[in-house]
């Protein structure tokens, strides 16, 4: 019995050690640096109102091969999905659907709670808000339903942020 407990403890701690992840290396830095450059390019294109070019830049972030399991890689990708959703959000129903689809792709990739995962839900809330505004005059009842979806998305974002902050507060002395 005692031996089993010892073994379980050892395995648990070994897993905890693994959860610390790998050392920061050149590969991670190169990937982050490339992602950073693509996002800055998107900023520059947006300054000239070139939304399509900015979208193409952000899509490049999703083609970067981050080291497997690197949390920074997942976060950079989630941020890219969120930004694509914002860039694709336009004045039509189709634009909103496309934007929501990008959010959904990000959600599907997320493996853990993070501020980036919460940000995705915030962007989802913004998309629903935009849709509710667009249809408010013509479809009042549907607009009310869409506003409810926006509220739910914001609530998810708040809950994730609170969990991440609570986890960080435990980590820090």
């Amino acid at each position, binding site marked *: 019995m*005692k*031996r089993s407990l*010892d*073994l379980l*403890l*050892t395995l648990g*701690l*070994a897993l*905890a*050690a693994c959860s*610390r*992840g*790998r*050392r*920061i*290396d*050149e590969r*991670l*830095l190169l990937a*982050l*640096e490339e*992602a*950073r450059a693509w*996002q*800055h390019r*998107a*900023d520059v294109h947006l300054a000239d109102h070139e939304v399509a070019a900015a979208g193409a830049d*952000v899509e490049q972030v999703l083609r970067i091969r981050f*080291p497997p*399991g*690197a*949390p*920074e890689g997942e*976060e*950079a990708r989630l*941020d*890219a999905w*969120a*930004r694509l959703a914002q860039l694709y959000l336009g004045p039509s129903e189709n634009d909103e659907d496309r934007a929501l689809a990008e959010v959904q792709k990000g959600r599907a990739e997320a493996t*853990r709670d*993070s*501020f*980036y995962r*919460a*940000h995705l839900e*915030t962007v989802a809330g913004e998309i629903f808000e935009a849709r509710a505004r667009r249809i408010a005059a013509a479809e009042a009842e549907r607009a009310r339903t869409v506003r409810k979806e926006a509220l739910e998305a914001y609530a998810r*974002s708040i809950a994730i*942020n609170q969990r*991440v*902050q609570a*986890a*960080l507060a435990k*980590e*820090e002395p």
Partner: protein
Amino acid sequence: MVDDETPPSQEELANAEALRRAIDGESHASEDAQAAALIFASSGRAPRLGEVAARRLVLEAVAAAGRKRRTSSLAQWSRSVGVALGAAAAAVVLFVVALPDAPRRWMSRPSGSTVPGPFSPQQTAAQRLDLLTSDRMTAFRESRLYEAHR
């Protein structure tokens, strides 16, 4: 009627010898042992421990001691394994918790403390990556510097 003058037959002699052996504890035949026990009980004295019986007792005691020693060494081995696992667990705890903060900063990890959220609408994805890349670059340089001076 039994004639006392008649010399004992071979069978009677054999039975007497068997009874003597049982009384001396040298025989394990159940009938002999029962007869011996009855004789001892009627005479009111405990059976005498024969040489063979004593040897059997010694052998049994030695065997029991051997079994006990084997059981004891198994328990000792279990304890050793337990101690080794405990030591390994302690080493992992040291690695995970008790080591200074610096090595942890050199690890790839979530950026919650580097780029704290919730993100403001004014902060762009590029700015977040600026913060993150800069932090990880610094940590990487520190780790390389540490290794170079080791």
